[in-house]
C-alpha cells in the first residue's frame, strides 16, 4: 500500500497539544468515535460511555509498559552539544539512539551527560535509519531519569512531566515511548469496566522507534525494530476464557495488537504465556487471529500506525472516520480523542 493512500485532511486546530488532564481536567473525558466495521457505521460517543460498547465476558487488554524519558542532552568530548534520542534500550548500559547533529560524532566518541555519566559511541550507521549504538559507563536508566526529558511531539505546547505520558496502570519500565491509547483510562473507569463483568488483562510490550520515519513511499518501506513483549499466564488465561465463551478480545492500543497478534503466530491451540520479541509489522491483508476490537487514538497520516489501522478497518471506512472526526472537531494524535473499532 502506498503511504499517500493513508493521508487525510487535518485542521491544525484539531491537534491536541496538551495532556487530557491539562486540556480537559481529567483523562477520561475525551470524546470517542465508534467505528462499527460490520455495519460500516460511525457513531459519536465518549470514553466514559465505553461500557455501552462492551459486554460481560469480553477482555480488555492493556499494555503496562512504563515510559522513561528518552531524550538526553550531551556534549561530545565535553564541548559540541548534541541531542540523543533513544530508540530502544537494549541493556541498562546499551541503547540504540539517534544522535543529532552528527558532524562531531565518530565511532569511539565520548558523549558526556549532565549527570556525569558518559556514553561511548560503539557503532555508527546501525540499520536503515543510521542509528548509533551507545554504551554508557553507568546505568543509562538512572541517567534518563535524572537528566532526560520525554520524547515529545513536535506540536506539543510544552514539555510535560513524564507521568503525563504514562497510563495509570503502567508499571514495567522499558519504553521510551508509551502506549498512549491507555492514557484515557482512570482507576474509576477501570473499576466501572470491571464492575460490568468485563475482564481486564495486562501484557507488556516495550515500544521501540515508532517515531522513526518511513524510508520510502510504501508501507513496505518501514524498518521494523524488534520489540520485547510478554503475555503473562493471567493474560493468556483471560484471553482463553473470552475466546472460549465467544466473547471479544479488545486491544487498547496498537502495541497490544502487535503483541497479541505476534503471540498468536506461535500459539498452537489455546493462548499460552509467552515472552518473545515482536518484529510484526501489520499492514492491510493481515489476518487477525486474536484481536476482535481495537481502542486507540487518531494517528498521524502516512504512519505505520495508520497502516495497522487500515489493516484492522477497511480503508474506505477508516478514511470516512478520519474525515468525520476532522469535520466534527475531534482532537487528534496522542493527547487527543479516542477511536474504537468494534
Amino acid at each position, binding site marked *: 500500500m502506498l503511504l499517500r493512500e493513508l493521508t487525510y485532511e487535518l485542521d491544525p486546530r484539531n491537534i491536541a497539544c496538551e495532556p487530557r488532564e491539562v486540556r480537559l481536567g481529567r483523562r477520561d473525558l475525551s470524546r470517542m468515535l465508534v467505528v462499527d466495521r460490520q455495519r460500516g457505521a460511525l457513531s459519536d460517543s465518549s470514553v466514559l460511555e465505553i461500557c455501552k460498547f462492551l459486554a460481560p465476558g469480553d477482555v480488555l487488554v492493556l499494555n503496562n509498559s512504563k515510559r522513561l524519558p528518552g531524550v538526553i*542532552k550531551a556534549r561530545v568530548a565535553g564541548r*559540541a*552539544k548534541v541531542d540523543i534520542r533513544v530508540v530502544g534500550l537494549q541493556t541498562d548500559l546499551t541503547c540504540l539512539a539517534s544522535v*543529532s*547533529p552528527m558532524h562531531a560524532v565518530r565511532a569511539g566518541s565520548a558523549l558526556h551527560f549532565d549527570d556525569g555519566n558518559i556514553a561511548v559511541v560503539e557503532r555508527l550507521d546501525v540499520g536503515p535509519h543510521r542509528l548509533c549504538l551507545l554504551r554508557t559507563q553507568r546505568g543509562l536508566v538512572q541517567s534518563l531519569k535524572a537528566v532526560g526529558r520525554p520524547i*515529545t511531539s*513536535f506540536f*506539543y*505546547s510544552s*514539555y510535560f512531566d513524564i507521568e503525563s505520558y504514562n497510563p495509570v496502570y503502567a508499571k514495567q519500565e522499558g519504553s521510551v515511548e508509551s502506549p498512549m491509547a491507555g492514557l484515557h483510562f482512570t482507576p474509576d473507569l477501570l473499576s466501572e469496566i470491571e464492575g460490568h463483568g468485563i475482564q481486564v488483562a495486562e501484557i507488556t510490550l516495550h515500544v521501540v522507534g515508532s517515531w522513526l520515519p518511513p524510508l520510502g513511499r510504501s508501507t513496505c518501506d518501514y524498518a521494523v525494530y524488534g520489540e520485547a513483549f510478554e503475555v503473562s499466564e493471567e493474560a493468556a488465561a483471560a484471553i482463553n476464557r473470552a475466546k472460549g465463551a465467544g466473547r471479544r478480545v479488545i486491544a487498547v492500543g496498537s502495541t497490544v495488537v502487535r503483541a497479541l497478534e505476534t503471540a498468536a503466530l506461535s500459539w498452537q491451540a489455546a493462548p499460552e504465556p509467552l515472552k518473545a520479541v515482536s518484529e510484526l509489522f501489520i499492514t492491510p491483508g493481515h489476518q487477525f487471529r486474536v484481536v476482535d476490537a481495537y481502542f486507540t487514538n487518531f494517528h498521524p497520516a502516512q504512519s505505520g500506525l495508520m497502516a495497522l489501522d487500515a489493516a484492522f478497518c477497511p480503508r474506505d471506512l477508516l478514511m470516512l472516520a478520519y474525515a468525520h472526526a476532522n469535520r466534527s472537531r475531534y482532537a487528534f494524535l496522542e493527547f487527543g480523542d479516542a477511536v474504537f473499532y468494534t
Partner: protein
Amino acid sequence: MAKSHIDENALFERDDFVLATLTPSGILLHHMPSGGYLQLGAAGKIIWELCDSTYSVGEIALRPWGTAHSPIGISHARRVIGLLLRGGFIQLVQSQDV
C-alpha cells in the same frame, strides 16, 4: 541584537527547548517556551546544526552547502544566526565584542 553586530568570532549554542523536524527542503524549528516556529532551508539547517558552541560564525560562513558546494557566506550566516537568536532558538556562549 542587530545582525551587523554579530561578531565573526562569536560562538552560539542551540537552546535546550527547541524541537526540530526535517522538511523536504531543510528544517522546521519549534521553540517551546515562546511557541515560535522557524523554517530554514538547506543552508539554514547546516547553520543551525553547527551552532554547537564549537564553530564560530566565521567558520560557519566557510562551510560548503548545496550541489555547488559553495560557502554559506558571512552575510547569510549572520542573517540566519540573527533570526535564530531573536527567536530564542540559539544562545550566545562566547564573543569578543557582542
